[in-house]
């Protein structure tokens, strides 16, 4: 059997693939957004310039259906009507042939606002100056989850440790910026674009236009990382209105500055822990409060909050837990989906906190964590039996074998004191254990998504996959084809995936939440099995599959009890660094990773996920600084300011997979793409802590932060260090 598809990504690699910016239609117009310059206010007065012939302006009053983007809740308007909640919110869409004329018109539009005091941070949101931004208390969502008896737990504790951790924004920085092109065709409004979820765009157009004569098609997409889950709706809603009105093709493509400034980001989260440890050094109680900064509209914050709550104890069996989580409204760009969806924040916080607890109680962090691992006999935080085997101990052994973690911990603990060699370098090693729930939260796969796929065999015996899941650079199309080809036992080049086009493919759900392989791949495997059993030479055959949850899976959305996810994948990352005591820059000496993803269908494709996900996580933990300025917009505006690691910043990643097949995944596979982002930041921070012997509680850990931690207490007096004689 052929296992290498030489055509895979050939077009992208050779530069002949058509991205949305390469699409061209006769008479195509350009679109530009006019955006709010006020972070919180009500539109008071508007002065519009005279538009030359052929130039048009679209606003809330032009929306034929509902002026809402249907992202979970319908609170985010397609066009701001009266109220604005953040700088950059779309007020108008301008359309015309010459982009320079559009830019000039934008400059001539004058809106005055009656502004009120904006809230950018969680504490500002809580203060509710000038009243709430939304509801009565600025809370988009709130939920509490309890396991065991928290009071009884704390009564058994001999040590109680309070600790707080926080995470900042992260920018997706996909290579291709956001862009869509819309045009009328055969009575429908069609939007093509760079997107993860064509059916989301389809539903959005239909909601805004008030009819279902719409169609969404994915163009070749240059990366998403979650940034193209909900956000294409922000472009597609207004664009659909303009295309329907003018009946002409219109293109709307963000430049990089616009993309960094106004698209969704990873949610910043603040964690406050109170953890009780008993006389044997075991955790008996954990009380956790987590607060999420959602931005101006609800968007996906509720689901991020749910994942944060249900996975807040990570891979640990803690008997008594109370966790209370709130998603707060603020006056910034709404935060959205980003690889891991709440889990990288939660994993960083719990791993860092547990290291602090271990050190405080005189224990080795890795051994302390291992002593609390969930086992096959454990119950999860949400009270479910563990399904399948837990192989964390085996993974820990493997991680230690690869990285020599325990030996290095000992040797680095014995390094010379900084005062003895203030111009030298110090080494550190850190480890993080993590998990990722695959697929939509709870039983949403069953009650909401109900994924549907089809495979079609033509008379020549070639097989086409019909699914709405998109290849956004992660290699999904190859993996899907392999699942089907291997099940059918036919050569790989006889299987291909149809372009995700809502006119052609059933709604197999969005390309998010590590559900593509686990949920949709399994449906494809079952469809292929059905075809194999019923294969008839020389005729066209079609087989469909619809999602049905496994019998063991139970979930109660009210009480948050049951299987928080259908399946869970696991990982361990180890990071070794060398820190320059003069510049506080760190060099990464080693990166090791061990995963349980059930089974990797294509180990090389998964290696790509490991390399990308782990490096992205290292960037999240070390260099990717995205700060709000006083106006509530981001200080970092370009790829030169927002610093993601390059291949020169990381060594070759050494990784290993533990086989642990999952019964309800294709070939035993579980999800893996998001998982690879969950542990890197925590492991990096642990390595820095190990090098400098100081606790860290927020990311990113930049050289500036390390310098403050090491030398900030020198009273700003550069002439006399604390170690001077």
């Amino acid at each position, binding site marked *: 059997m052929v296992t290498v598809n030489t055509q895979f990504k050939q077009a992208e690699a050779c530069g002949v693939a058509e991205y949305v910016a390469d699409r061209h239609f006769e008479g195509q117009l350009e679109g530009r957004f006019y955006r709010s310059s006020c972070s919180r206010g009500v539109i008071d007065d508007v002065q519009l310039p005279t538009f030359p012939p052929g130039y048009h302006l679209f606003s809330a009053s032009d929306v034929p259906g509902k002026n809402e983007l249907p992202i979970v809740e319908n609170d985010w308007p397609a066009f701001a009507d009266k109220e604005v909640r953040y700088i950059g919110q779309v007020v108008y869409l301008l359309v015309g042939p010459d982009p320079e004329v559009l830019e000039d018109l934008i400059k001539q539009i004058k809106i005055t606002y009656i502004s009120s005091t904006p809230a950018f941070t969680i504490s500002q949101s809580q203060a509710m100056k000038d009243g709430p931004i939304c509801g009565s208390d600025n809370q988009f969502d709130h939920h509490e989850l309890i396991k065991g008896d928290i009071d009884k737990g704390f009564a058994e504790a001999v040590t109680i440790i309070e600790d707080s951790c926080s995470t900042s924004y992260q920018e997706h920085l996909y290579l291709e910026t956001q862009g869509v092109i819309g045009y009328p065709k055969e009575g429908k409004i069609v939007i093509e674009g760079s997107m993860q979820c064509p059916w989301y765009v389809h539903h959005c157009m239909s909601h805004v236009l008030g009819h279902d004569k719409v169609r969404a098609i994915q163009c070749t997409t240059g990366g998403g990382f979650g940034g193209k889950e909900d956000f294409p709706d922000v472009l597609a809603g207004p664009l659909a209105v303009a295309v329907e009105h003018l009946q002409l093709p219109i293109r709307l493509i963000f*430049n*990089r*500055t616009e993309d960094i400034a106004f698209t969704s980001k990873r949610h910043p989260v603040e964690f406050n822990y109170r953890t009780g440890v008993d006389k044997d050094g075991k955790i008996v109680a954990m009380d956790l409060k987590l607060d999420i900064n959602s931005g101006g509209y609800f968007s996906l914050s509720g689901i991020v909050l749910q994942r944060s709550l249900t996975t807040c104890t990570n891979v640990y069996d803690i008997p008594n837990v109370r966790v209370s989580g709130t998603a707060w409204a603020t006056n910034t760009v709404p935060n959205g989906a980003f690889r891991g969806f709440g889990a990288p924040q939660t994993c960083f916080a719990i791993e860092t906190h547990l290291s602090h607890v271990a050190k405080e109680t005189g224990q080795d962090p890795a051994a302390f964590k291992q002593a609390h691992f969930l086992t096959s006999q454990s119950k999860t935080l949400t009270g479910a039996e563990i399904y399948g085997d837990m192989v964390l101990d085996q993974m820990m052994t493997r991680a230690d074998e690869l990285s020599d973690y325990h030996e290095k911990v000992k040797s680095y603990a014995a390094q010379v004191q900084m005062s003895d060699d203030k*111009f030298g370098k110090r080494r550190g090693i850190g480890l993080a254990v993590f998990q990722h729930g695959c697929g939509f939260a709870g039983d949403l796969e069953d009650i909401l998504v109900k994924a549907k796929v089809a495979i079609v065999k033509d008379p020549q015996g070639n097989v086409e996959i019909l699914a709405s899941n998109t290849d956004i650079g992660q290699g999904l199309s190859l993996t899907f084809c392999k699942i089907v080809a291997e099940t059918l036992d036919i050569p790989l080049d006889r299987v291909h995936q149809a372009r995700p086009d809502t006119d052609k493919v059933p709604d197999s759900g969005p390309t998010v939440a590590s559900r593509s392989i686990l949920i949709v791949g399994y449906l494809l495997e079952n469809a292929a099995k059905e075809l194999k059993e019923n294969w008839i030479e020389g005729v066209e055959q079609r087989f469909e599959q619809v999602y049905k949850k496994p019998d063991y899976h139970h979930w109660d959305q009210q009480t948050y009890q049951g299987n928080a996810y259908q399946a869970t994948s696991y990982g361990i990352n180890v990071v070794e660094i060398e820190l320059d005591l*003069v*510049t*506080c*820059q760190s060099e990464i000496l080693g990166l090791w990773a061990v995963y349980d993803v059930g089974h990797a269908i294509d180990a090389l494709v998964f290696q790509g996920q490991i390399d990308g996900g782990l490096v992205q996580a290292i960037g999240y933990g070390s*260099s990717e600084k995205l*700060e709000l300025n006083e106006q509530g917009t981001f*200080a*970092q*505006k*370009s790829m*030169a*300011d927002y*610093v993601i*690691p*390059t291949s*020169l*910043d990381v060594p070759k990643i050494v990784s290993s997979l533990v086989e642990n097949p999952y019964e309800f995944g294709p070939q035993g596979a579980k999800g893996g793409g998001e998982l690879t982002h969950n542990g890197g930041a925590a492991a990096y921070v642990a390595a820095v802590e190990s090098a400098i012997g100081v606790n860290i509680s927020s990311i990113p850990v930049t*050289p*500036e932060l390390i*310098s*403050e931690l090491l*030398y900030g207490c020198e009273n*700003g007096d*550069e*002439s*006399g260090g604390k170690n*001077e*004689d």
Partner: protein
Amino acid sequence: MVIAYRPETTAQAVEYLARGDVAIFAGGTDIMVGDKPVCRSFKGEPSAMLFIDAIDELKTLSDNSKTITVGAGLSLTELENDHRVPKLLRDSILQVAAPGVRNCATMGGNVCNASPAADTLPILYLLDTQVVVSSVNGKITFPIEQFIKGPGITQLTSSDLLTQLVIPKTEFSHTFYRKVGTRCANALTKVSIVGAANIQNGLLSDWRVAFGAVGPTVVRDQQIESLLIGKPVAWLKQHHNIQSIIEAYKAKISPLSDQRSTATYRLRTSLKLLEKWLTELSDG
């Protein structure tokens, strides 16, 4: 439509410039950055572009016993590959952006862009580089610290063309160069420092240091340098002597906080690097 000139001689080029409202395009790596081409010497759009890539005179490198003369149109890669170019300068070039950018970017462009964070500028200051500017009125030579007046601001008028850099040949027994960037490759500078010294018979016969990205222009102070020159190396063994040098520079360095780093970090790190270098020197 913008008029494009592509002369083959400096004489022709300065004639075009004398007509006014002409923007010089060398490698284009700064002009082409951003959503729209931006030219520092023009607020609006110039009516003509002067492409200087066809002028061979700007692409020559020559040397004599005392100096090396670098054509402004030589690319950073060409300088990096020429062993007549001082090693300190070549070391700094290797840390500029990525190979593709270095292949296009010119030495003259790097100087005229006059960014406080430019990687080559501290080296040029340290080496007492002279800048040769041509116009229809003839040639003028400036010491580089007089040529650059502020961020993006130089002595260049709209009718001038930077044609050459003249770098004195100076041998140093000890050098020190560190760029603190945002990452390993393709990184803009947060702080940089270059130092050079000659130690003869236990005396510091020459000692210089220059800092990048810690003020509106490169910081080099020959008055402070003169406090060290002529002193025995052993003078540095006294920690308070090193501290007095650091204190002197502390008063000269005025970094900003921006989206890439903080003023505190820049100040602290540049002084720590200086201390590290002085301590290294004290060990001979």
